[in-house]
């Protein structure tokens, strides 16, 4: 994850409390989604950014996951996301995200 984005995520977690922050990803690949999810939960696995060694444990989802899709107005989702849903390997992304959440998330309901 971009170093500047890591900094912003960390600042939001400090400002609002980690239990009140949900990170929503839009990455195009399962691996990239998993890496970003790991960064905001367990810490930066590349040891480069401000989240190195910082386990925020934030709640994190990909926009194509069913839990997130259910929260949307279907018309908005169709206009904004449905094309990408057709393009992405949604199963792969969901599997990666679920695995990271189960392992590192601290605030799942």
């Amino acid at each position, binding site marked *: 994850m971009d170093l500047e984005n890591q900094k912003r995520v960390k600042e939001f977690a400090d400002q609002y409390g980690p239990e009140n922050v949900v990170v929503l990803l839009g990455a195009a690949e399962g691996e990239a989604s998993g890496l970003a999810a790991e960064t905001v939960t367990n810490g930066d696995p590349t040891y*480069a950014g401000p989240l190195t060694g910082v386990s925020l444990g934030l709640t994190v989802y990909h926009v194509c996951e069913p839990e997130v899709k259910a929260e949307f107005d279907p018309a908005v989702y169709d206009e*904004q996301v*449905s094309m990408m849903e057709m393009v992405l390997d949604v199963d792969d992304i969901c599997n990666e995200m679920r695995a990271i959440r189960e392992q590192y998330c601290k605030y799942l309901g």
Partner: protein
Amino acid sequence: MRHGSILRQCCESVRAAGRLLHRFIAINRRESTDRKIYLRKAVNPIMKSVIKGAGYILVHTPDMVLHNGTTQTTERIVNPDGEYLKELPSHLRSFEQTLSYWPNQVYIGNKTPDDLAAVPQPWCDKECDVKERFGHFGQIMPQEEFLLLMQACDVFDLVKLEQGFVDAHRAALAANPIIDESIMARIPEQQTAIDEIERLVKEEHSEGLYHQDKLVGCVNRAHDIDVNLSAHVMHENIVSKASSVLALLSGVKNAGIDKDEVEYVIDCCEEACGDMNQRGGGNFAKATAEIAGLNNATGSDARGFCAGPAHALVEAAALVESGAYKTVAVTAGGCTAKLGMNGKDHVKKGLPILEDMLGGFCVILSANDGVSPEINLEILGRHTVGTGSAPQAVIGSLVTDPLDRAGLKVTDIDKFSPEMQNPDITKPAGAGDVPLANYKMIAALAVKRGDIEKADLGNFPVKHGLTGWAPTQGHIPSGVPYIGFAREDILAGKIKRAMIIGKGSLFLGRMTNLFDGVSFVIQANSGESAESGVSEEEVKGMIAKAMKDFAATLMAQAE
């Protein structure tokens, strides 16, 4: 009665003459450009600009990966003793290895995108059967020649090279067919002693120039306190300029035109030159044209992150189509900062550092010659302020909206050329196959519109797409790598239309969160050249004759 009838006829004729005169005056009152367009449109459709030729070059710069790529310079600050920096040198490729790398041979035109698509990925463990340094689009230049070319492109005596290094490689650069005596004459006989270069790097903040891990020169700062003229910035800018010179010379040569025919140059790289009072003042374009010997050219810089080249080409096409300039060159050099950008992933996965090449390109546009493929400015895709950043909205604005306006379907475009990044570089870094992702999005939108069946989704990238081959140098892979091939494919009758798509991440500049993009269509020539049109003088003559005839009629009626 007879007199009354003549009077009525005269009154009607005077009214008609008045209407015609009014229209004529209205035409003449317009601004001259508007008037030209109006008159030309009235008699003859505007002649589209054509793609006269293109040049593509690469420069192998392994030492700049180590010393100038931002992934490496950042790592040197945050993790200087880490494993990555220790392991990195053993992953660098030799010049010969870069010559036998498939995507590089496609970039300079010795192999085609179709050839590349037939080679199973990954490509970095395979040798291309062509290992030529020169191709019909351009060349792959080795680092030692490029360092001399950098000095030739420096007009402020900032690039210092060690005497022995220059003596050893001067003949090689002089033998390069694209480099003429005027460029060689810019490299002084008297060079610098290594002791002085070491002192400059150590004491004067000069940026070291290395070859085979040995200091062989430096770029000095151009100002003691202005960070915009620091050695680092000057190095980055001179590299961009030198690689752009190489691309520009290749483009002009391939277009088969005289250097003096180029009237305007647009540079569309992602660097900025200027000082503390005008940080991005420019002008790379004119500076590059000077070294390339384009004495009749002026120029300016166009910027738009990775979308810069597509914006620049639309602007160039408009300049030619309007008649402002007959021949325009769009050119860009490479970027040192992006060298080894994904190096950490490549090293971690035991791969060579594949981002060791600077890229450059040049496209020459000229007035319609009746043969070369045309740029159709009537089918422009534009991502506007109000478009939004959802992928669906972006692809819609760049692909389907312009096609809708032209009454075309997605399948009417034979080949789409979006971001043509080499997947051999991006896939191991977790960014996937970028061109393929674009084709999937275009196909998905085509399904939503009913242009293709859902069952044809998988086949769409094969039929209407290309396999990426360009280095990940930001603006370099952005739509433009296919223009050279598109010209050939259209001339050979293989395809009729290609769409070039440029996209840019404006948020990186922290001035806006907006995304950006622009697209245009290249099509087969309609067969009408600019010479076959009717000139403004002829149009004026036609109007004058009509007025004269009308006056004669009026006089005859009065008699």
